[in-house]
């Protein structure tokens, strides 16, 4: 064993490459979760379109959000329903 490795062991210092790997994995994870600026707007538009086939909703009070925690990310979508369309799948208007 080389002297500097022995010294590192004695001082209980971890390998810097392990830090690099950990940082890298975290960076790649957060990179993948990053969302383009127009994505949320487009998603909201599409969701409103789909839900409107089944429910009458207040398009203005829709809330769409991404909640991130250490382990996971979740898409939170919240909309008040005004009424259900009687004939499923067929838009009222």
């Amino acid at each position, binding site marked *: *064993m*080389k002297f*500097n*490795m022995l010294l*590192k062991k004695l001082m209980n210092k*971890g*390998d*810097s*490459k*392990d830090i*690099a*790997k950990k*940082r*890298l*994995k975290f*960076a*790649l994870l957060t*990179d993948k979760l990053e969302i383009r600026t127009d994505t949320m707007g487009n998603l909201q538009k599409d969701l409103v379109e789909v839900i409107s086939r089944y429910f009458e909703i207040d398009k203005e009070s829709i809330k769409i959000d991404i909640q991130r925690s250490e382990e996971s990310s979740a898409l939170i979508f919240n909309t008040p329903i005004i009424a259900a369309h009687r004939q499923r799948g067929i838009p009222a208007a």
Partner: protein
Amino acid sequence: MDGKVIVVTSGKGGVGKTTISASLGAALAMQGKRVAVVDMDIGLRNLDVVMGLENRIVFNIVDIIKGRCKIKQAAIKDRRIDNLFLIPASQSDDKNAIKPENMIWLTNRLRKEFDVTLLDCPAGIEQGFKNSIAAADEAVVVCTPEVSAVRDADRIIGLLYAQSITPKLIVNRIVPKMVENGDMLSHEDVVEVLSIDLIGLIEMDDRVVVSTNTGTPLVLQEESKAGMALQRIALRLDGHPDLPIENPMIQKSFWKKLGSKLGRKN
């Protein structure tokens, strides 16, 4: 049969794309293939100096696309290595001078003339990158064992998959001593993070600077470890995919080698 088009790309700049493109081109030509190496970095050309052909440029890739010359007029023949040609980039045009459809047109013609066309992709993910990958059948992603280079490689790999290209990885500038000391990501670490197949490992090699200084192909330098690794990568790219990948190791002294043979850890 039509030749194939391989893009050499990385995302991050300065990881060795141009040196690798030039060397792979030279190695493939020495193996008997007819090779064109194309500088895709419009406005910031460098492949010409790395290949030592900068004095012989008359026409460039933009001239071909704009119909100002024929492919044969722009392709510079290397006089040291048979069957090796360079198509230089334009230094004065803007990178938007070429569009992906132009590259598809050009490479379809190059396929008829050359067994292998290597595209030396510029850094970044803008126009030059888009032009390069639009025309490619295969891709080689270059990265160094650094956080920044690996992260950019990951992004590039994702963009290549989106184009239905499954890239292969070269880990460049490995310093075996630092890897052994735990101060550099090993190629296993890099492969684990990126989860793609390796096509070669290249050790940090001072000869690369010397080769670039003089514009001499690295693969012509016998004592260059990087040059040897690149020759093996060229074989893997063309017909010998199962050639074993050599892991750069610390050159051990005779007594240490003997020690490890006898089972003693050093």
